[in-house]
């Protein structure tokens, strides 16, 4: 299969860089897979699991906050948080969900509350997906 260059960047470091065959990105409007030669495309991320397929077993990372940019030169994903699923503890995720829950309760006006509520839902569904993943891999 054709490969293309892929970079996963967090503000603190370059998390992943290399040639891959497919990347599945949790986009704000649904997950999408990127293959080599994708049309130029920019999408924001929702919290979720990013899957990198290349040589060897697929790598899965939890990402939140940021965007993905595909162009003829390859795919770049900028994420504020990017943690390999293996290193992500259930408590961390639970803490994030609690924080998001508090944010929803603290929200003063309706539109902020709605957007935070949406974020909370996305976080919860990501947590569910991660749990399901952990079950299948064991």
């Amino acid at each position, binding site marked *: 299969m054709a490969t293309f260059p892929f*970079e996963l*960047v*967090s*503000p*603190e*470091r*370059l998390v992943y860089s290399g040639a891959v065959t497919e990347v599945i990105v949790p*986009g*704000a*409007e649904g997950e999408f897979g990127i293959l080599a030669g994708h*049309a*130029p*495309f*920019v*999408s*924001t991320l929702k919290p979720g699991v990013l899957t990198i397929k290349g040589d060897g077993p697929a790598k899965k990372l939890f990402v939140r*906050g*940021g*965007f993905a*940019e595909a*162009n*003829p030169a390859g795919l*770049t994903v*900028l994420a*504020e948080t990017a943690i390999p699923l293996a290193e992500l503890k259930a408590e961390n995720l639970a803490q994030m969900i609690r924080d998001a829950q508090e944010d929803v309760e603290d929200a003063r006006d309706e539109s902020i509350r709605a957007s935070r509520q949406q974020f909370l839902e996305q976080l919860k569904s990501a947590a569910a997906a991660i749990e399901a993943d952990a079950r299948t891999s064991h």
Partner: protein
Amino acid sequence: MASLKDLRNRIASVKATQKITKAMQMVAAAKLRRAQQAAEAARPYAQRMESVLGNIAGAISGGPDAPLLLTGTGKDETHLLIVLTAERGLCGAFNSSIVRLARERALSLMAQGKTVKIFCVGRKGHDALRRQFEKQIVEAVELRANKGATFADAQKIAEKIGAMFAAGEFDVATQFFSRFQSVISQVPTAQQLIPATFAAPAEAPKGSEAVYEYEPGEAEILADLLPRNLAVQIFKALLENGASEQGARMSAMDNATRNAGEMIKKQTLTYNRTRQAMITKELIEIISGAEAL
């Protein structure tokens, strides 16, 4: 004239000081390397962010639904100055040069009849500005002194600033920090954060770069990314500041070590002269005593 014992004590104390400054210099050198690496590691993120935002912003900035973070409130009345400094001193003119730049800006803005608000990050800047601008300081954040800045720190600061902007507490935000050029040169810099400014795309997009497809729309992406960009810009400034601080401290401590060395040399010379003078004096006394017999 100081006695021999006094001189000995003085030399010992300067030597102890020299050891401390030498150690601080070496610690700063090690930390500088780490700070530089952190700054370099953060660069790709900031660059990509800027290029994507630049692309989208160029397309949308003229439109009526452009977000306020990009266009500003259209007023120029209240200025927020974000002053980023270090937690600790003993780093040459690092803190004071940032503070001076901010102070000059604040005074000139006030002279023009604008309202100035100051947001201090780092204890040193707050200490230096507190006396003169007590009424203007709206917020002061301290960072943990030992660890380098993390993105979470920057995010917290950005959130506070974003909330203040949303509440209409200021029109223009500028951050003051020190750009790291080299170990011997750090340039205090002012950067405007709100309304956001982007360097125009360096070169016209190549022919192969077709028009991007945006999901969700361009406006939504922009609304999502601009607050993040605020955090990224602050993070970048914090990292630059971290590297600058260590660089400044390194050269300041290098100077201090050298000065201590010179002082030790001078005092050892005086010490030896005094000692010899005393021996000569005693000899003369003995000889003249013997001759008198």
